[in-house]
């Protein structure tokens, strides 16, 4: 297996120049979550704000490997400005890509830069790294929706 398959240029670019890696102020009902990967100690703090069914802001900070950092960057870029439903769909699609063992489908195209992580799905130990930020988003959205429903 060669390394370049896993560490695509897109991934290294996001790792070196992460998007939205600066926590926005916690106001107007924004939600903050903190997720860790207990097997390696990687962590991400994520703040998300949903207004009228649109995820208007996704910002984060974190410590971790290139895969977790790049994946969180891609996730933040894709979901900020998207509708709540589309963000959840993207999350589900990314999860399915991670379970694909590297075989992509047309449906994965919506993931744009996220498609670059297909190679990561070949390394079970790294799938959790790639999912860290996405699972934080999912958690933030469900908490936010929970609060909205109250």
């Amino acid at each position, binding site marked *: 297996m060669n*390394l370049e398959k*896993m*560490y695509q240029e897109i991934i290294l670019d996001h790792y070196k120049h992460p998007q939205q890696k600066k926590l926005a102020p916690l106001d107007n009902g924004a939600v903050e979550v903190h997720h860790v990967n207990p097997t*390696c*100690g990687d962590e991400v703090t994520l703040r998300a704000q949903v207004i009228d069914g649109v995820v208007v802001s996704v910002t984060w900070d974190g410590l971790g490997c*290139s895969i977790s950092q790049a994946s969180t960057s891609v996730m933040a870029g894709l979901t900020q400005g998207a509708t709540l439903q589309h963000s959840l769909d993207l999350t589900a699609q990314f999860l399915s890509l991670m379970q694909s063992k590297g075989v992509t489908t047309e449906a994965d195209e919506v993931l744009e830069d996220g498609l670059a992580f297909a190679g990561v799905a070949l390394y079970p130990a790294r799938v959790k*790294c790639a999912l860290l930020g996405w699972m934080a988003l999912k958690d933030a959205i469900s908490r936010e929706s929970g609060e909205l429903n109250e």
Partner: protein
Amino acid sequence: MPEPKLNAEILKKDFPLLERTVRGGKRLVYLDSGATSQKPRVVLDAERDFYENRNAAAHRGAHQLAEEATEAFEGAREVVARFIGANSREVVFTKSATESINLVAYSLSSADSPIQWIPGDEVLLTEMEHHANLIPWQEMAKRTGAILRFIPVTDEGLLDLTNIDTLIGERTRILSFTHASNVLGTTNPVRFLADLAHSVGAVVVLDACQSVPHEAIDVVALGVDLMTFSGHKMLGPTGVGVLWGRFDLLESMPPFLTGGSMIEIVTLESATYSLPPKRFEAGVPNMAQAVGLAAAVNYLTAVGMDAIAEHELDLVTKAISGLEALPGVRILGPAGPRGGALSFLVDGIHPHDVGQVLDDDGVAVRVGHHCAWPLMRRFGVAATTRATFYLYNTEDDVRALIAGVERAQKFFGSAP
């Protein structure tokens, strides 16, 4: 030049797994023995032989097989006892070293414990403990009201004994610490700490998981009261650990797991318990695993523990100098004297990514917090890359490690 005492190139032929390749035909360079060691054929054969020829429930039944199974199991106990300079009635077989420590923490805090806890009594640990020698005590503290205290670690990775006199005092009931750090490679001053703890009447527990597999151990000379280690880190099978204890102390300790095999007399209302070690071995024991462990011990003894220690020190010393020669690589832990666990950081590259590049070259290392999360925090890092060495590792393995780290630096463009 003196003849090397140990020839790893020859020894590694005894380990079937080390013959396999990984990641598309790469030679396997196994540098993760600190997590678990590979097994020589004699260990696998011993387990198979037990199942094929002597399998029956030890200590039960009047038939010949039961006798032979008992003999095999008790014979294994003798072998393990001799290996650490102990009497066999002081050797308890557990499932793992983790179970051993849980056994001790639970037994010493139950109603019949020889230690009667008064809230505010103290358990002294160190900042460099594996979670297995931390969390059982946290749980025990909840039950007893005990306070956990910690011997700090210096920047160099040694125990900071500057204020040891204030840490060990009349409230100290238990001192439990690791002989050799699984992260830093630090070897701790066991006798010194044990004597200090005994001067205030504390019970001394030693986590010897990273020392018993790698050096000659005389448990009496160490001066501790209880000691734990695991079989699978010393060429033995998984599913078997050891608790050694001073017999009079073991005899005063109530059981942890209860059930069959560990009793004297049972009525519907109550039971009395066997003497150690059986008191602590409820259920049909892990006979095949104990037999496998004894085969591992015999193998290690035949190679020679001093030769193994010398070989590993040679490898780790070469690895340290090779890694230190790379700009941007920092070793965590003491220069020496030290054990074989070697943790390092590569500037600008997360340990997971270092490990991934090494893996691509067939080099298996451990990355992460090594079940010592508080120690990671102490050094302000989330994770490290760790190489650990054993008798089957060679200088080629060390070269592969260093070349892999260089490749990671090139790959991620972080080479200064």
